[in-house]
């Protein structure tokens, strides 16, 4: 009996909120799409009842706000029912975006760690580079995504790489900040202890600083992977891109295909959530092996 | 016959933890009369802090009744019947010392002029005059604790509850503060409940010493002190003092050998 109560305490509130959100979604769909429904009826010189209007709002082709089941149907149609290699398949588009994300994320993490190590061990690097790293984030890099794509295309670098570069730029910052904090996190006592053992700086790094920075690293990786995904999506917007979730978003908005927009968006959301969850799992396994309690 | 200001009747408190129930307090019966200085002493886990917190309505008992000023503990708390001093000063860093002392006065609705007067008065009592515009981090640990005591004295409450307030301070500062506390007690005539780890401190300050023992938390013995109320630190070398101290020590030893 207690176990059921505990489970409900944990899941109940989230479940209720999700239920409420779904209800609000349906209500808003009716509300927003009603104008079009009444419009259609007026032009056909027919008057429709309230319930007829409601059912119409649920099946419009270009609704202002698609109802949840319309979006689910569209997602189902373009993932399960389409061949994975088809240009209409959301899985295919998702993979295009995902590959750029993962590549950029890998580059960004590597760059971030290298910069962090440099900043922690070289005072001149700390003083010259760190302020610029922070400033770089106040510059809206996403804004120059179009330019980066065009420039790289002009020198013959196209397709996956330019998007990966944008993703790399977005994900390196959380990694630098997190790693610097993490590498500096051992307290003075622990560092002094290494000195009493005459440990060289490299040993101190591998055996003390690096392990201490793991929790910080994983927190940054979660932020970084989400940022990479955003970078890849925005990287698909310029030059009338034809492939990827961002391209689907753009195409949908050009042609007023709202259901397409929403299904691409939900797909991107699921992708983001899965990536963060995967990192969470890796984090738990790694930290548990290292003996750190989460 | 003095009225009973704080009374506990068959008081029990059990905490449910992952390792099973913890009997923090069991069948506590206690009467504290007006104007007494009562110390609670015992090893870790004997429930002395828990008892103080129950009196302050910061914990709820699972059984039994506690009455403060003839009201339930919750009512007494809403009537602002007592001032509480914690182990750490708990001063709000965004307020000056004066601002911190004004905090309860603002909440309880004293007017601005009265607030100012009380702050000056109470800072003088703890010998911190002139520090009202300083911030907590600019003061030493001992001074912060004095400020926190001043804060508890600022409003009109007949009862003062103190939970190991001098535990984190060094011996010299501690002695000095003990003396000041006694003087305060003499001047203000409040009823004071004081939790401590230190036998000399308990014997020096109190009119009544409650010795407690753990697992389950209970009162082993109540020792009345017949030392004169106007004492100085020298009394710690007197025969009467050492007598009472050894009574306390024996009782504590008995409690710990029961395990």
């Amino acid at each position, binding site marked *: 009996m207690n176990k059921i109560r505990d489970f409900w305490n*944990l899941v109940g509130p989230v479940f209720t909120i999700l239920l409420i959100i779904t209800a609000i979604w349906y209500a808003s769909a009716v509300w927003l799409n009603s104008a079009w429904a009444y419009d259609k009826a007026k032009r056909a010189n027919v008057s429709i009842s309230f319930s007829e209007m409601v059912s119409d709002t649920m099946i419009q082709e270009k609704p202002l706000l698609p109802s949840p089941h319309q979006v689910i149907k569209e997602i189902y149609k373009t993932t399960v029912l389409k061949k994975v290699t088809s240009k209409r398949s959301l899985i295919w588009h998702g993979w295009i975006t995902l590959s750029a994300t993962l590549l950029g994320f890998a580059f960004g993490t590597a760059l971030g760690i290298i910069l962090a190590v440099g900043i922690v061990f070289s005072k001149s690097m700390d003083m*010259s580079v760190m302020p610029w790293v922070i400033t770089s984030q106040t510059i809206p890099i996403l804004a120059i995504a179009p330019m980066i794509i065009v420039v790289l295309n*002009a020198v013959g670098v196209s397709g996956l790489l330019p998007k990966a570069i944008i993703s790399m730029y977005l994900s390196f910052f959380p990694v630098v900040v997190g790693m610097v904090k993490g590498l500096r996190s051992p307290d003075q006592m622990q560092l002094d202890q290494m000195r009493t053992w005459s440990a060289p700086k490299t040993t101190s790094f591998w055996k003390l600083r690096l392990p201490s920075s793991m929790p910080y690293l994983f927190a940054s990786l979660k932020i970084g992977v*989400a940022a990479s995904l955003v970078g890849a999506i925005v990287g698909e917007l310029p030059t009338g891109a034809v492939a990827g979730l961002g391209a689907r978003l753009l195409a949908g908005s050009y042609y007023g295909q*709202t259901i397409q*927009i929403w299904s691409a968006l939900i797909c991107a959301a699921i992708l983001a959530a899965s990536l963060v969850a995967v990192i969470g799992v890796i984090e738990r396994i790694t930290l548990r092996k290292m003996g750190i309690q989460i | 016959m003095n009225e009973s200001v704080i009374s506990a009747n068959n008081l029990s408190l059990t905490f449910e933890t992952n390792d099973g129930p913890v009997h923090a307090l069991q069948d506590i019966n206690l009467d504290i009369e007006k104007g007494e200085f009562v110390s609670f002493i015992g090893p870790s886990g004997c429930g002395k802090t828990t008892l103080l917190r129950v009196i302050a309505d*910061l914990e709820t008992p699972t059984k039994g009744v506690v009455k403060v000023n003839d009201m339930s503990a919750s009512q007494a708390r809403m009537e602002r019947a007592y001032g509480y001093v914690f182990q750490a000063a*708990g001063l709000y860093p965004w307020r000056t010392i004066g601002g911190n002392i004004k905090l309860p006065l603002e909440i309880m609705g004293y007017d601005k002029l009265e607030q100012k007067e009380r702050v000056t008065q109470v800072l003088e009592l703890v010998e911190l005059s002139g520090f009202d515009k300083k911030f907590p981090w600019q003061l030493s640990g001992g001074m912060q604790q004095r400020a926190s005591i001043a804060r508890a004295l600022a409003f009109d409450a007949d009862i003062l509850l103190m939970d190991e307030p001098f535990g984190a301070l060094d011996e010299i500062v501690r002695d000095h503060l003990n003396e000041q506390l006694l003087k305060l007690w003499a001047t203000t005539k409040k009823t004071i409940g004081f939790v401590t780890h230190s036998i000399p401190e308990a014997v020096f300050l109190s009119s009544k010493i409650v010795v407690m023992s753990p697992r389950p938390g209970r009162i082993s013995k109540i020792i009345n002190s017949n030392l004169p109320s106007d004492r100085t630190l020298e009394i710690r070398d007197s025969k009467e003092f050492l007598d009472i101290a050894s009574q306390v020590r024996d009782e504590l030893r008995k409690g710990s050998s029961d395990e």
Partner: protein
Amino acid sequence: MTWVFSALLTWIVLWLINIQLAKIEANRFINLLVPALFGFSILILWEGFVRGFNISPILLPPPSAIAVRFSGSLSILWIDFVQTFIKGALSGYMIGCIAAFITAVAVDKSNFLKRGLLPVGNFVAALPIIGMAPILVMWFGFDWHSKAAVVVVMVFFPMLVNTVAGLNAKDNIQHDLMKTYGASYWQNLLKLSLPAAMPFIFNGLKICTTLALIGAIVSEFFGSPTRGMGFRISTEVGRLSLDMVWAEITVAALAGSAFYGLMALIEKGVTFWHPSQRK
């Protein structure tokens, strides 16, 4: 080639100067000089490489050309700035942060909301919110209102998460003290929870300054009247006049840094008592 060599030489010299400067006792002036020299050396490198390797200005204009274009287009840059930053980003920022703040206070009061809304909020904060831009353009039209709406959505969740964390940040003794004073809910909120939450709230406010600017600019890629920083960037990219693009970026960088800096300044004043400000 002389361009390239002299640029490299200058960079190396400045780097060596920086290494020496880093060894001197740190003071405010040195702390500003070192990164300034570093930034300047990068600009020199950039100019030198572009000229030396004869890189086409269509691909990468040298800093000098950008400066010229910048000073020549001040009126256009100003119009774009007002449209994107002041109308879009700033209004969205204020609405989003205030809404998040009120929601956080409500969540703090209700345990049910805390356990239900927070996990959902944490989840949404990690999603590519920028994807909502086309939808919001469709609902609110091409003008700055849709951009403000995007900013509201982007700013709301990080601000909510930070504020809720802040409202929980008071320590046990401070909280118990309030109970012993018999303080009411509002007294507790105003005198303890809110001041204690300020460091977290400002952390959120600072993060959201960058999110606001990015949201406003990128959402213009999805549709905009013929002005605005995002609009200008995408059209000038199409025309391959990249010096104008870099000029717009400069404006964006200046605006972003100034906005962030303003928040940091206010933070210093409000949270003067926090250990991180007292170093």
